[in-house]
């Protein structure tokens, strides 16, 4: 763990410098548009950072409440989609036939625009919560299935021969070899899917829901320039929810598969 704290300490400073300069630049351009050039609707185009932050502070309870609704539904959908994706990956890895049968449909499913699918699903289930969950799951499903299948297939022939030489049962081969070997792929898929599932949930909310960050986002967009700060605040909260989801998956990955090449200390211990 010594290597990790060293690494994060070494990384923290440049990141901080970057963030501060970026925010300063934003603030400067915002001022320029508003005060120097007198651009119409300047604060809708690039509002002051400090005003957004203040609005976020003022409306923190609302933003938190609506954000929690979005995140909770997205998380549930994400879990269901991930489970379904992983299950399909296992089936496809076990049988070439199932793969040939299921794979074209899995790809075709990704061709349907979510923007069109969301109202269809909402029209069918007539429940904003359930639609959010379904869309988040739908988005999660494919990257997880694809990446986990690749992981399951990544096993070296010699690693399988070793199992064979010990007369291992098919179940043991999966449990002790294929599953662990698929973890890097699985987490790769989960990391792609997690922020997307949040975006998907927000999209459903834009179709006309009662709760969720997407709802207040849309509402403040309609209210116009007087609500520019609040609109930007909701966009930022939406982005933060995506970042949070990615961050949770990354933490989980480190806990579950600390042996991955990505986590090895630089230079190794040889």
């Amino acid at each position: 763990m010594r290597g990790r704290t060293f690494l994060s300490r070494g990384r923290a400073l440049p990141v901080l410098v970057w963030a501060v300069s970026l925010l300063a630049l934003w603030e400067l351009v915002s001022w320029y548009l508003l005060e120097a050039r007198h651009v119409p609707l300047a604060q809708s185009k690039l509002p002051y950072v400090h005003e957004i932050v203040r609005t976020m502070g003022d409306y923190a309870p609302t933003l938190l409440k609506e954000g929690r609704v979005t995140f909770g539904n997205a998380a549930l959908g994400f879990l269901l989609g991930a489970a379904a994706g992983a299950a399909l990956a296992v089936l496809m890895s076990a049988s070439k036939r199932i793969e040939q049968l299921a794979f074209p449909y899995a790809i075709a499913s990704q061709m349907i625009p979510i923007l069109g699918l969301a109202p269809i699903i909402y029209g069918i289930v007539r429940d904003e919560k359930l639609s959010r969950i379904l869309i988040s799951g739908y988005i999660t499903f494919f990257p997880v299935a694809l990446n986990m299948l690749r992981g399951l297939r990544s096993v070296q022939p010699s690693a399988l021969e070793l199992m064979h030489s010990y007369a291992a049962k098919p179940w043991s081969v999966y449990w002790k070899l294929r599953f662990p070997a698929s973890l890097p792929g699985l987490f790769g898929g989960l990391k792609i899917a997690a922020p997307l599932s949040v975006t998907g949930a927000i999209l459903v909310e834009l179709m006309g829901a009662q709760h969720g960050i997407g709802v207040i986002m849309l509402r403040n967009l309609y209210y116009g320039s007087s609500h520019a700060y609040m609109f930007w605040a909701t966009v930022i909260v939406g982005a933060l929810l995506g970042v949070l989801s990615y961050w949770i998956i990354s933490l989980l990955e480190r806990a579950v598969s600390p042996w991955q090449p990505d986590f090895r200390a630089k230079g190794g211990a040889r």
Partner: protein
Amino acid sequence: MTMTATTVQEIQLEQVSMRYRTDASEVLALQQVSLNIGRGEFVSLLGPSGCGKTTLLRIMADLLQPSEGSVTVAGKSAREARLAQKYGIVFQSPVLYDWRKVKTNITLPLELMGVKKADRERKAAELLELVGLEKFRDKYPWQLSGGMQQRVAIARALAMEPEILLMDEPFSALDEFSRERLNEELLSIWSKVGSTVVFVTHSIPEAVFLSDRVFVLSPHPGRLSAVVEIPLPRPRTQEMRNGPEFFGLIAKIRDSFEGV
């Protein structure tokens, strides 16, 4: 140990041939190989690439089915021997599982056999001591050198206390120094466990240093061209590598290759 009339037969190959079919032609990888290996004997399968030595080992291990001929292991078929867990195999690369630490890599075969955790722990400690890796029990494979990884693979192969240890060029990826040291370590381990060892190599000195007998294989088609007894006393020491007897045996084996 030399072959005598009283030696118990462990592995018998009779007229084993192996053909690979490609689109255009047929390749004869092994042509009618017959050999006997006694229980507790250390033998090498020696030859240049393309002589079928690895194929022969894989046939013994039941990882390949011969096109013709029969394999008998302790009176059974190779398949029955494999299912009865009589084999410990060491591959050319260590084939350690990345997600397992040294200790659990070693006890993998015991887990597969349903051995209790306490017994696995005890066996792991014993094996780690045997291969001299006690300090590395909680390291991941990538934290070890190539030679250490191969020692872990040997420990894992020994975990089931196999009757037969099959080794497919286990040290070929290592430098000459590590290789000679591991040769000596392997003999010391073997003297403690007493399994039958079949060792595939393309190095003549390695085969001479380790073996009771060397099966010399020649390529195109792969066939058994000579069986050379190695009468060097045991335990074998590094000094023996410089003796005239050692060089004499190397010359004898070199002369026995056909059509290389």
